[in-house]
């Protein structure tokens, strides 16, 4: 009897273990959480493709002339205003195969590398791609592996920089003159020796710089009497109230834990409208003693709580995913939506001519508007075989007119780069015109912020998302929200 029973308990424990192990295994589905966090560009595949064709048409002729006259020498001869003479690192003339890892569903790097190969035929790209969520899990192993990538989309960077897995780009920055670019561009990619971001050595480059703000449905906005974008927070809140009483949904936003809570966007916009951006960036960059639980942030969270209570967001927001929110806004549900310029192509094709963009207005008239703006971050493995060529590629992306055009047409975002670099053209009637103009405003004001969901690796999943969802459900108030998130922040830093 005993043996038999023991056998069965062994069997049952094996089943238990089996399920347990399978529970621990990395699951295939995408975590859109992180996707939203950094590039926030999860979705737009189909729309992006549409735009892509435009690129091919407008840009192709230029390319071909360069191809005919052939290769590296030519480009150095092409007039590129801000590119320094090719004394620095380059791809040379020998055949080079770059080992690259890109993010699935996001066209920009693929278009850029295709164009790069056209201009520099000795360089080809061996490109692997994966979902963003999988990249998060794989990146440490890829960087430390036997075949380290020359070019890789970085989901996060601080831990990899600290672990010595990423190439320090300070030398390249000097050689190419990146350090002379308009200031805030590179800061988010700097990591100090103590692991804080925002200052220190450069460990990654942005292919472009996304910008967030408020998109609006022009027809619905006219319906509630909005003739020009609001200049103050008060004015904006007046419009929200008008929309509500007109029987319209004031703000479309997403909130499912599967995408990560979209209310982090309006909350951060409110924080920057009602208070200084410096302390917010300090908190995101993990500066010593930084806290999110400040007086002005509390006011911001209270505003958000009021918006929720007034019914400014969809009642089912906790179940809405990012893609659903974008689609529902496109179909005319919601006067406003807080989102970023990575969605430009989607809005343009879904509601052509009917979408506008403005920055979150400041609390007082004449104040500086601020915005969350993050680079589309790429890095080079510390042990990469073709680091020079990868750095040259970064410089080319920021300075070559064709590359900059691809950046804007395909990605919808500001290409950044040196001041005085070529200004890409934008299709007539595209909302990209407005986001690029807004980007210049933010650049001049110096009020760009990283995303509050990027402060630690799981502050979004463990902090903002559940606590904001609770606020929607009436189970958390403004003060409790900030306290809970700060506690989670400290728990994650105390590892």
């Amino acid at each position: 009897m005993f043996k038999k029973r023991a056998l069965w308990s062994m069997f049952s424990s094996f089943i238990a273990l089996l399920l347990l192990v399978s529970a621990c295994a990395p699951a295939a589905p995408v975590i859109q959480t992180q996707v939203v966090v950094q590039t926030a560009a999860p979705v737009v595949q189909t729309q992006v493709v549409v735009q892509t064709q435009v690129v091919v048409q407008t840009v192709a002729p230029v390319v071909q002339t360069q191809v005919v006259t052939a290769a590296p020498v030519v480009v150095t001869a092409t007039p590129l205003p801000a590119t320094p003479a090719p004394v620095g690192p380059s791809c040379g003339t020998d055949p080079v195969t770059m080992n690259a890892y890109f993010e699935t569903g996001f066209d920009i790097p693929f278009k850029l590398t295709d164009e790069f190969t056209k201009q520099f035929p000795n360089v080809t790209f061996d490109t692997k791609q994966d979902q963003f969520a999988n990249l998060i899990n794989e990146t440490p192993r890829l960087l430390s592996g036997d075949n380290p990538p020359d070019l890789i989309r970085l989901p996060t960077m601080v831990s990899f920089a600290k672990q010595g897995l990423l190439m320090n780009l300070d030398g390249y920055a000097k050689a190419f003159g990146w350090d002379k670019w308009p200031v805030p561009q590179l800061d988010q990619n700097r990591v100090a020796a103590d692991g804080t971001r925002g200052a220190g050595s450069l460990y990654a480059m942005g292919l472009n710089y996304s910008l967030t703000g408020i998109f609006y449905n022009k027809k619905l906005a006219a319906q509630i009497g909005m003739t020009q974008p609001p200049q103050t927070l008060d004015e904006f809140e007046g419009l929200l109230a008008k929309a509500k009483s007109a029987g319209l949904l004031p703000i479309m936003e997403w909130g499912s834990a599967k995408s990560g809570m979209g209310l982090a966007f309006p909350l951060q916009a409110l924080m920057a409208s009602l208070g200084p951006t410096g302390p917010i960036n300090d908190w995101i960059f993990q500066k010593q003693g930084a806290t999110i639980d400040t007086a002005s942030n509390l006011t911001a969270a209270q505003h958000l709580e009021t918006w929720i209570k007034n019914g400014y967001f969809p009642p089912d927001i906790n179940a809405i995913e990012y893609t659903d929110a974008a689609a529902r806004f496109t179909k005319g549900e919601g006067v406003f939506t807080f989102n970023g310029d990575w969605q430009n192509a989607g809005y343009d094709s879904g509601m052509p001519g009917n979408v506008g963009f403005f920055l979150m207005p400041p609390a007082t008239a004449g104040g500086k508007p601020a915005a969350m703006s993050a680079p589309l971050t790429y890095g080079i493995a510390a042990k990469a075989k073709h680091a020079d060529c990868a750095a040259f590629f970064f410089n080319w992306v920021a300075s070559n007119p064709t590359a900059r055009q691809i950046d804007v047409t395909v990605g919808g975002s500001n290409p950044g780069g040196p001041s005085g670099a070529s200004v890409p053209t934008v299709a007539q009637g595209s909302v990209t015109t407005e986001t690029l103009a807004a980007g210049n405003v933010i650049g001049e004001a110096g009020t760009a912020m990283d995303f509050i969901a990027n402060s630690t690796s799981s502050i979004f999943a463990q902090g903002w998302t559940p606590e904001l969802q609770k606020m929607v459900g009436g189970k958390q108030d403004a003060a409790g929200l900030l306290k809970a998130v700060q506690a989670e922040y400290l728990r994650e830093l105390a590892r």
Partner: protein
Amino acid sequence: MPAPARSAVESTVMSDNGTVALASSRRTSPSRVARREKIIGWLFVVPALLMYAVFVLLPLVLSVQYSFFRWDGIGPMTWMGLQNYLTVLEVPDLLGTIYNAFRLVLFFSFIPVTLGLVVASIIHRVATGRLGEIARTVLFLPQVIPLVAAGIIWGWLLALPGLINQMLRAAGLGVIARAWLGDFDWALPAVGLIGIWVLLGFCTVLLLTGMTKVDPALYESARIDGAGWLTEFLSITVPLLRQEIGVCLTVTVIAALAAFDIVYVSTAGGPGNSTAVPGIQIYILAFTEQRIGLASALAVLLMILVLVVILPIQRLSREETP
């Protein structure tokens, strides 16, 4: 059990009554044939055993090992002793996630097993032949459909503009229409509903197979004695299916306590933490926070919890009737 005569040697070898008959019959057969059969038997088992060792036993041992270290997955490992097991208690809302897992037992285990018994006995009694086959296939289908796809479809069905709410409104029940997966009170039952859908077919098919094993003469004599369907069900079907019910309970309770996939594809733990389960926490700790040691410690604790719950079920269903 009749005790066969055996030699002194055998009796010292056999310490357990239950296995004597089998063992002694093995002894009496020609040893070479027996050995050959034994080797062939092992050959059949080896591929499965190998997979099992590589994909189950090895990760298990490694998980236990990792749980004593601080490790980010790449860098050097630092010995922590039992510290991880203390730190893991600071994980936000840990008790809440365990409580949620036990609430899921109701939906993943008790309802599918109970419903499975009823459905199986109906199919067994009424729908034999073609109809029974169709019913079985339809019920088993959720086991075949990839869960991720099913999760997306259920997400649409349960959304505020989704089919379920449309039907409710059409039936004049618009008042209770809501975003089921985004509602603090209803998200967990909604996830539970998906669990029922997934696990009902498994239980039904297993129990149905068990029922075909039961001697029809028993039912016949019961019917002659005037027993109705319910009496038959309670006094013949359920007692004789005790082992199958035990297996169903075991598998489904584990599915509930170690739940990950169904929750991950439907709510990812939200809203708030109202559907968060330990499996989701383990995933976030290991892959988002890169704290492999801490995640392994939680995984080991979860395994112990599952064992503590499962072993009594095993004992109950395995207890042999005298």
